[in-house]
């Protein structure tokens, strides 16, 4: 009886105690940096020098900063190039490896391997492959196409980086789709077959509707990740963001502007706030589209 009284007394605080470690970590590494970034965006703070309040000056400056518009363009193009591929291709891959046939585990693991590989290693391998004298160009030259400037042309560089992002992300989203496909009742496919639907018809009329919410989730996650892309482009285009910085993405611009001993922390924070706002807007857009479709 005494024990139960003690338990009852602890109840109001217990949930907070359970949540405390997570809250502390989130507060220290997510909320505090976020608030700090927000505050800094209204100052002219440098890495080593304290800032003073400058109002909206940083935001006004970025409207006239060519690199900001270049970054916004590239990050937006990245979404346009990567998201459709990452919504569709992993689903097809998941359908391929969904069946339990001998040896399929090998293919599942193989498709997932790029996900766990270090992005730096992956990036370097692709740089070697796509170099002017790399394997891909040697093959192209052998078949008479000639060398292609994958790493020297600003658009090809961006496309190459997108290809790496898609290649590396396929396995991850494939696993998400596999989980969703496991929940699709087999009876629906059977019923569709009885009604005379072929594999393509079944895919569009049964599979796609069944995993539509997962597709929305994948679209949301991959668009946020695409908009925040850094590593692939940094590794392939170099720290300056490709020829004349034309492949710079917004997050690369944040990194380049705000780091180092002479970093403009205030301005980089303003850029970060814009990235945040655009990303949240993107999420809301996806969710709204999902809701409209459902209704």
């Amino acid at each position, binding site marked *: 009886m005494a024990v139960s009284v003690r338990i009852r007394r602890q109840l109001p605080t217990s949930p907070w105690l359970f949540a405390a470690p997570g809250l502390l970590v989130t507060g220290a590494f997510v909320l505090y940096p976020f608030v700090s970034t927000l505050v800094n965006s209204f100052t002219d703070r440098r890495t080593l020098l*304290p800032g003073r309040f400058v109002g909206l000056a940083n935001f006004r400056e970025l409207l006239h900063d060519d690199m900001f518009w270049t970054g916004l363009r590239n990050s937006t193009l990245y979404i346009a190039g990567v998201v459709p591929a990452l919504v569709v291709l992993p689903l097809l891959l998941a359908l391929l490896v969904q069946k339990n046939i001998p040896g399929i585990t090998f293919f599942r693991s193989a498709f997932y391997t790029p996900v766990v590989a270090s992005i730096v290693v992956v990036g370097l391998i692709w740089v070697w492959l796509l170099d*002017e004298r790399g394997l891909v160009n040697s093959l192209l030259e052998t078949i008479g196409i000639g060398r292609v400037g994958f790493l020297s042309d600003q658009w090809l560089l961006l496309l190459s980086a997108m290809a790496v992002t898609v290649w590396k992300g396929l396995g991850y989203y494939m696993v998400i789709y596999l989980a969703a496909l496991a929940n699709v009742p087999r009876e629906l496919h059977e019923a569709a077959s009885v009604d005379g639907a072929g594999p393509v018809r079944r895919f569009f009329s049964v599979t796609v509707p069944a995993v539509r919410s997962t597709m929305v989730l994948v679209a949301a996650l991959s668009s946020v990740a695409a908009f925040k892309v850094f590593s692939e482009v940094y590794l392939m285009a170099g720290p300056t963001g490709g020829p004349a910085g034309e492949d710079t993405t917004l997050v690369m611009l944040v990194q380049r502007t705000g780091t180092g001993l002479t970093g403009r922390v205030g301005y980089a924070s303003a850029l970060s706030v814009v990235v945040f706002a655009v990303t949240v807007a993107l999420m809301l857009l996806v969710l709204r589209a999902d809701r409209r479709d459902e209704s």
Partner: protein
Amino acid sequence: MVSSAANSPTQQGSRVTVPMPRRALAAAAVALVLPLSACGSGGDEGGSTDASGKVEGDITFQTWNLRANFTPYFDRLIAAFEKKYPGTHVKWIDQPAEGYADKLSADAGGGTLPDVVNVSPDLVAPLAKAGLAMDLDKAAGKYRPEYLDGAWASHQVPGMSGTYAFPWYLNTGPLFYNKALFTEAGLNPGRPPKTYGELFAGALRMASKSGGKVATLANVPTIEDFGRYGVTLMDKQGTAFAFNDTKGVELLTRYKELYDAKALDPQALTATPESSGKKFLTGAVAMNPGSALDLDNFKKNAPSLYRNIGITDQITSTGHVNMYVMGVMVNAHTRHTPAAVAFAHFVTDAQNQMSFAKKVAIFPSTAGSLNDPYFTREDGTDETRVRIAAAKSLKSAVNYTPVLFSDQMKTALRNEVAKALQGRESPKQALDNAVNAADRLLRQG
């Protein structure tokens, strides 16, 4: 099989959906987008520039990517210092080359900057401006005559009085070239280019003969290239950049001709020193700047190149080659000023610099050291030949990179140079833009 409500399929007419919890989706999204960036701040307790007290206490010494190859040297150096000054203890830490400035800024911001720090002039300038680098004219002015004048002055910051680091080692290097590629292009491998005119003419010929497959140069011009070409980089007061003058435009125009003819590697716009070095190793590029250290690399990784290696002087229009200067800075907020200043001086004194120079292809910044027979007497090897030539040129060498030319300014220049090479801007417009951007960054502090 029973599934949870959240995951159970629902049927709407002919469409089947597996609903996802919207709140979970939104929470996941917020968690993904929130941690975009953050920067810390901090400060140290104040120190003193009075280095006259007893040399004692625990200090920390940070080097820049030296542990991998020189641990025994630094262990002995530290042991000798601790023996000379009982009561001192030096903790040595080393940071990788990549991201060194970021590491310094994190330490400076967090108040954990080591007592004695290996720096270069462009790194010391912002630290001095933030009051984190000790003025050695005040704290250690008596040691000034021990160093070459130019080396001592290399850690002075325009607009500020004082010197903010002891000069440590100097480096410069020759221009390597691939004799086999020269021969294939019909160029005389025994007579490498000595002037910019010869360099550009030879490069165009090389590109033409190889059908654009072999470039002569792998890098776009940097601020030090403009300096070597004789361009005035900055006004005398150090308040504005000036590399958009006629000579600057002339150099960039010549580079544009090279780029169009593929005499400048097509990937030069995104090249790094590492990638350029690799291209030289593989024979894709005929000339590349380097140092005596590279000879070992050629021997091990490209024996056929090593058999065909040619070595010539840096090309300049000024008669002064470019040199890189390393320094040793004392944290202005150190709690042990006498020990920190004494150690920084100990690391950079003539005896220890000489000892270090014999371990690796670097050159001492102390007065008279370059006259040591080690830097003047031939022994018939390539390494010695490069060393002697470099030591000779260092006596009149210049560190062309302005101390105030920050990383952001370097990026601005590089991007504008790239635009000029691609033909998107005229060389004049590109350099005007680069100067404007650099001036704006300079004014912003």
